[in-house]
């Protein structure tokens, strides 16, 4: 198991050092600094073995977190733990920075004592932790409060406490997708996938039982079949013309009953209070690619490049895409760039070796173009320019995977409110992930 956890600043000074196991000595702290932080090259592996001690490290802005062990630990678990530790710290004091860590070092030690015991991760749900790690000295808790805390921390529903009350029961559902694309210069899709998240903010009283439904192909097909004999299936479908989508794979927040999903493919759960990520999913079929990039690069002699890039928006004309940014890489020996674009603003950024073209808004089924002349300094470098791909950023108000939320039902048998009383909000946002076209 995890033998110790160290947090360093970018210089390699220790900010936090917590050792859980006897086999980890103080010299481990220095070994990591010398061999990884002070090593001049980029990180070649996130797991480094130094003198039979393994270091798992992640970096958040300028801060290094390293988990140390001498045993054959579950490596995936260690990294998941490090990410979780970052989440917990962020939830407590915001951005992970040297200043924030120094300011909260006592709190961090207290957290580390609670969520890792002898190197075994324990409960790491911020909701639960915040009920008893408060940094406010000891509160005179009543016996009931205490047992409520412990049963929440150890219990089946560790993510929600009892007795939550809201005057207005409300929930917000965000379908956030990032669409990833790799396209060849000829416009052939080399790979495309959507990785999506359903993020929920719930402000519900009591211990509500929720059921979430979407246009999952497997569910719709099953219901479609059952529909001939079963009327309820049909009525639930509503507009039967709606297309369904094939989900390659999905993962769920720990509140979702996985065995139920496995057997019936229904998503039922008791939600945590506040904001959390209900599910993640991935689709690869029938993706709506919101933009197409058509590059044209021409080398004119050895000292000049001509670049022309056309972007086409490919969605309903009534919708508006926002925050569009096209990044066209330029060679390292660029000496000057002239850009002409029809829409938006374009600038050559020498420090980033790229022409950055920004467009605030663009409606569907439109087209825009940029052309640039790049002047190059002659070099002796034999190696040709690698031509990194043209990348794009954007935000669109629909889900490129085609996912639709069909329902989210809330049942709270003990309290006096029904599904109809809950105010529900649904929003779809599609963003670019790694959206690249080779040129």
């Amino acid at each position, binding site marked *: 198991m995890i033998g110790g956890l160290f947090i360093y600043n970018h210089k390699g000074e*220790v900010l936090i*050092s917590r*050792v*859980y*196991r006897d086999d980890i000595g103080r010299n481990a702290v220095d070994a990591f600094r010398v061999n990884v932080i002070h090593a001049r090259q980029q*990180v*070649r*592996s996130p*797991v480094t073995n130094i003198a*039979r001690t393994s270091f798992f*490290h*992640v970096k958040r802005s300028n801060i290094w977190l390293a988990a140390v062990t001498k*045993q*054959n630990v579950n*490596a*995936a*678990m260690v*990294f*998941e733990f490090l990410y979780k530790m970052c989440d917990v710290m962020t939830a407590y004091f915001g951005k992970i920075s040297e*200043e924030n860590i*120094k*300011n*909260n*070092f*006592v709190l961090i*030690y207290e957290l580390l*004592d609670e969520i890792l*015991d*002898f190197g*075994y991760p*324990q*409960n*790491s*749900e911020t909701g639960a932790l915040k009920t008893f790690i408060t*940094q*406010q*000295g*000891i509160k005179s*808790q009543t016996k009931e409060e*205490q047992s409520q805390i*412990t*049963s929440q921390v150890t*219990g*089946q529903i*560790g993510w929600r406490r009892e007795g939550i009350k809201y005057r207005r029961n409300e929930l917000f559902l965000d379908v956030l997708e990032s669409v990833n694309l790799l396209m060849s210069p000829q416009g052939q899709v*080399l790979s495309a996938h959507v990785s999506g998240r359903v993020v929920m903010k719930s402000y519900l009283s009591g211990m509500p039982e929720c059921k979430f439904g979407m246009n999952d192909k497997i569910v719709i097909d099953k219901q479609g079949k059952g529909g001939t004999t079963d009327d309820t299936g049909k009525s639930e479908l509503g507009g039967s013309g709606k297309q369904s989508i094939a989900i*390659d*794979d*999905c*993962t*769920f*927040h*720990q509140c979702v*009953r*996985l065995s139920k*999903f*496995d057997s019936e493919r229904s998503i039922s759960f008791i939600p945590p209070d506040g904001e959390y990520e209900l*599910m993640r999913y991935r689709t690869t079929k029938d993706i709506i690619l919101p933009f197409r990039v058509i590059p044209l690069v021409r080398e004119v002699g050895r000292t000049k490049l001509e670049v022309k890039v056309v972007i086409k928006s490919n969605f309903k004309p009534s919708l508006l895409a926002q925050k569009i940014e096209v990044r066209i890489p330029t060679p390292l020996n660029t000496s000057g760039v002239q850009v002409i674009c029809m829409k938006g603003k374009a600038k050559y950024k020498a420090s980033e070796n790229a022409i950055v073209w920004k467009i605030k808004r663009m409606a569907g089924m439109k087209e825009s173009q940029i052309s640039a002349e790049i002047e190059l300094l002659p070099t002796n470098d034999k190696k040709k320019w690698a031509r*990194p791909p043209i990348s794009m950023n954007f935000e669109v108000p629909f889900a490129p995977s085609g996912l639709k939320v069909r329902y989210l039902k809330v049942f709270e048998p003990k309290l006096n409110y029904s599904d109809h009383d809950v105010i529900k909000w649904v929003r779809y946002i599609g963003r670019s992930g*790694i959206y690249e076209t080779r040129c």
Partner: protein
Amino acid sequence: MEWASQLCENRGLGSKMTDSKYFTTTKKGEIFELKAELNSDKKEKKKEAVKKVIASMTVGKDVSALFPDVVNCMQTDNLELKKLVYLYLMNYAKSQPDMAIMAVNTFVKDCEDPNPLIRALAVRTMGCIRVDKITEYLCEPLRKCLKDEDPYVRKTAAVCVAKLHDINAQLVEDQGFLDTLKDLISDSNPMVVANAVAALSEIAESHPNSNLLDLNPQTINKLLTALNECTEWGQIFILDCLANYTPRDDRESQSICERVTPRLSHANSAVVLSAVKVLMKFMEMLPKDLDYYGTLLKKLAPPLVTLLSAEPELQYVALRNINLIVQKRPEILKHEMKVFFVKYNDPIYVKLEKLDIMIRLASQANIAQVLAELKEYATEVDVDFVRKAVRAIGRCAIKVEQSAERCVSTLLDLIQTKVNYVVQEAIVVIKDIFRKYPNKYESVIATLCENLDSLDEPEARAAMIWIVGEYAERIDNADELLESFLEGFHDESTQVQLQLLTAIVKLFLKKPTETQELVQQVLSLATQDSDNPDLRDRGYIYWRLLSTDPVAAKEVVLAEKPLISEETDLIEPTLLEELICHIGTLASVYHKPPSAFVEGSRGVQHRRLPPRAGSVESAESPDVGQSGPSEAPPAVIPSQGDLLGDLLNLDLAPPTATVPSVQPSMQMGAMDLLGGGLDSLMGDESDTLGGDIGGSPSMGAGLGAAPTAMPAALGGAPPVGGGLGDLFDLGGGVGMPTGFYVVPKTLWLPAMKAKGLEISGTFARRGGIIQMDMSLTNKAMSVMTDFAIQFNRNSFGLAPAGPLQVLTPLSPNQTIDVSLPLSTSGPVMKMEPLNNLQVAVKNNIDVFYFSCQFPLSLLFVEDGKMERQVFLATWKDIPNDNEAQFQIKDIHLNSDAASNKLQGSNIFTIAKRTVEGQDMLYQSIKLTNSIWVLAEMRVQTGNPNYTLSIKCRAPEVCQFVYQCYEMVLKN
């Protein structure tokens, strides 16, 4: 409270006064000041001071001098302060054990606190203090906490048992904590169950043979129930524990799989990977024709792909594991090539791993896409990545024949870029392509030759030289090219020197007229001016071959080369199986068994996949369609330099495959490397062929005999050596009328230690000939060839009397029995124990060492019967100090039967005397080195115990003689 509210304010609104100030105080006299503050009456000041102490501790300053003062702050109702003091204690208690006792009272008191959080805190901290006296006091509170009414306390206590076990294992056993811990597996709270499982698993690891985690269907059922309810971390502990269980049959296996598959949708990647581990392991037991088996295979792919959208560090862990899974079951991900395409912004470690998997998944169906990608990668920035990409193109050519042409043209394009390392890497792989597809792509040689000057890496230079030598007849100026390399011969690396030597010899054999001078030059450079033994030996061999018989030289040097295999860098099946059992762990990231990087006893147990149930088919061959590897297990290209091939210019090419035709010549090479073997091999072969060269032929004579032996063998004629072996076998059969007792074969060399070669064996004496009977089993994936054997010097000068007769290559899973005749004329060195024999066995993969012990009776010669008179005289002559007495118990034989039996092993009874119902047998033994052993055996009728007195001038053998008696009489 004032402080607390202030702190909250700070956190909320940015900082006026913050904790970071504690990190900055570094003045002199600090300790003294702190001491004063710690003893202050004001609570706030105290707390401030403790914080400063902890900050100093964090940055590595020694604040142990403050121990008593800090411990004094322990008695407080402020939980935050208490935790800080505890933190300090955990760090320094070990260095101040006596003072640590001061803390005991508070701990014991806290363990009784009404607040469960404080009870748990106390027991948690106490377990972290590794001081014996504190540990003693821990037992009682821990016992209570294990049965506490609050689950939070119980789950903390469960882990505490593991802590205590780490400090004092005996104490934990004596106090019966293990049983309590086992009871917690049935606890009603899932987190308690998970922590108990984690603690038990850890304790069980340090007791490999204990039955601590007594996993039976009932406990498994409990674990599976808890699995649905506990935290993500608890699920990992439970799944990792489940993976150690071996289901009784395929039905149980299936039902566990069914209950584990829902975990594949968990958001936590570690839960997913641990579930994959359980499924991969238990799947092994399912019959392949079962519908569920297919369903399960299909269910595994999507979650594995999803892991690739995690953060890069986790992607890396996932990719390392996928690499293993793809080798074990290529069918799972065969359609998922695209997800392994490298993204421009992937960290380099992710890129390299993805590339590795792409090569493994490449097949005829997806090769076009793969090639297009690889070509892109070859223009990237990172040198390692580009090199690997170029190499991957070559591997594709070798793996998918249809793509070879496009691969070659892609490589040529890359060579045109003139980027130095790209060119060099391309040349290295093109050489392999030539080997795989002879006489197809040689037209590109001209292009390659243009780049001769830019090659500065030994591997590339050697590859280029190999190409020039191999195709010397098509390259007009081959002699000039090679001559240009020769100028700086001594500055080249060994690899290049060896290659240059061979290439020039090839050139000479192809174009003898113009190149005589060149070959002389290189031979003298290699033999006279070099201190590298490999180079010198190769030089001498070529020289003699050429001067003795150029025709034979041609047959040897220009022999047809074996084909190279398609797959590379495959992990040995035994290791792969073990690593599959460690999916998700560090072992699977390093691709090494835990014993390679974990110290002590932990994790040294080797894990195995369960045997496949209910189906006859061979368990390992993956049932893939056309795209995956074919039925035959793929051959592994060994990474080490191959000594054998070296000699006969096969070194460049990854040597493998089955090439019976070149076998004898290869073997000759092997023997030479083992020292003097060449002579004996040649000598023996000519012996059996009716030649009269026997004895110990000189090097020249051996070579002289070669032409007669070699062409026959090269032409695939019946293996000469095999006949020889048969003859010996036959002789053996006839030669043991009274039955020399042969110990059953024992395992001498486990496959784990010898890259898949397993050797078991025994010794026998048949008709006066000592034989070593061995069974060689190939447990690796590749064909093994070129076996040779040699002994270290030993007490009785045992040495192989002939070469190891393994003439057909040993295919995977094949076992071959060989009898090696031994002589006793080898070099002598006393061994401990006396009958110890150290053996080196070599094959095309490596040299392996093991030691075994032979029964001394092996050395009892047939003419060991002494004259009576001599016996009497000798018995008296040997001082009594040299007499040793032994009891042989439980022998139910009369003296005659015993005497007969012993005679079979050349223990001769010279005389028998009966005194008072006691038979006295006088016996003599002669060893191969002419040492005489005299014995007197007393047999009392009705008494199953014999008394044996042994006298010998070399008393150290007595013990071993006695062992032989016992062995012979008891069998």
